[in-house]
């Protein structure tokens, strides 16, 4: 994405220099350029949670931990129970489909 933005900005600057575009077009291009830069910042930094790189080079979602810490111990257990139930249900459904299965189609 950064590469695309760079080449886009480069093209705009070149067009401005060589006066290939009209003033109205200039304004429109500038606005879309600013939008694109904002989009870059949002997508790369502001919209994503901050992750920590640990010593063994794995990534930890700090935001998720902060969110989980806000819950009470009982809510945390409930959240785990819900996750376990969902996992078991999915496993069961998958097993059922596999057992039922010569007619089923696998998508991957």
């Amino acid at each position, binding site marked *: 994405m950064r590469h695309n933005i760079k080449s886009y900005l480069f093209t705009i600057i070149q067009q401005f220099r060589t006066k290939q575009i009209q003033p109205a077009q200039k304004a429109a291009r500038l606005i879309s350029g600013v939008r694109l830069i904002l989009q870059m910042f949002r997508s790369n930094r502001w919209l994503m949670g901050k992750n920590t790189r640990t010593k063994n080079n794995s990534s930890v979602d*700090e935001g998720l*931990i902060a969110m*989980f810490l806000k819950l009470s*111990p009982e809510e*945390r*257990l409930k959240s*785990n129970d819900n996750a376990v139930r969902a*996992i*078991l249900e999915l496993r069961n459904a998958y097993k059922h489909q596999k057992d039922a299965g010569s007619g089923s189609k696998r998508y991957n």
Partner: protein
Amino acid sequence: MPTNIKKTPEADLSAIIEGLIKAEVKFILVGGLAAVIQGAPVTTMDVDIVHNRSSENISKLFEFLKSIDATYRRQDNKIIAPKEEDFSAMGHALFTTRIGPLDVLSFIEEKKTYEDLLKHTIEIEFRGHTIQVLDIKVLIELKRKSKDPKDRQRLPVLEETLRQLEKK
């Protein structure tokens, strides 16, 4: 609608903990659920406890296990119910119950028993009762020494959880 779908096994790990409390079993919550209760966003499929091995406590534990239809978790389909004397030995007993899997451990890493671990626990309020939970700091120390890949994988999340807890 298919009617022959096997019913998803029950899993209510909170109910296991509540049942242990109501049965007045002396235990320390260890493993993944001890991490979850202290704020680590990991998912664990079973309850791990280290129990006090006094005969009175073993009787209470045994009665509770009977009440939730506990049978040994096995690769084959043999149904083997526990016996009271199983819990006085130094070993692990892994059960399937009608409300979820429960691992009853007489010790954890470095042969640490209930008595050894008690001073490394924190008290957590749960449904109006207090339970003993192995402190996340100790959990981390034990996991650091573990050779189990699952433990190694969880370690960064536990460490970050502790970091945020200490920052508070």
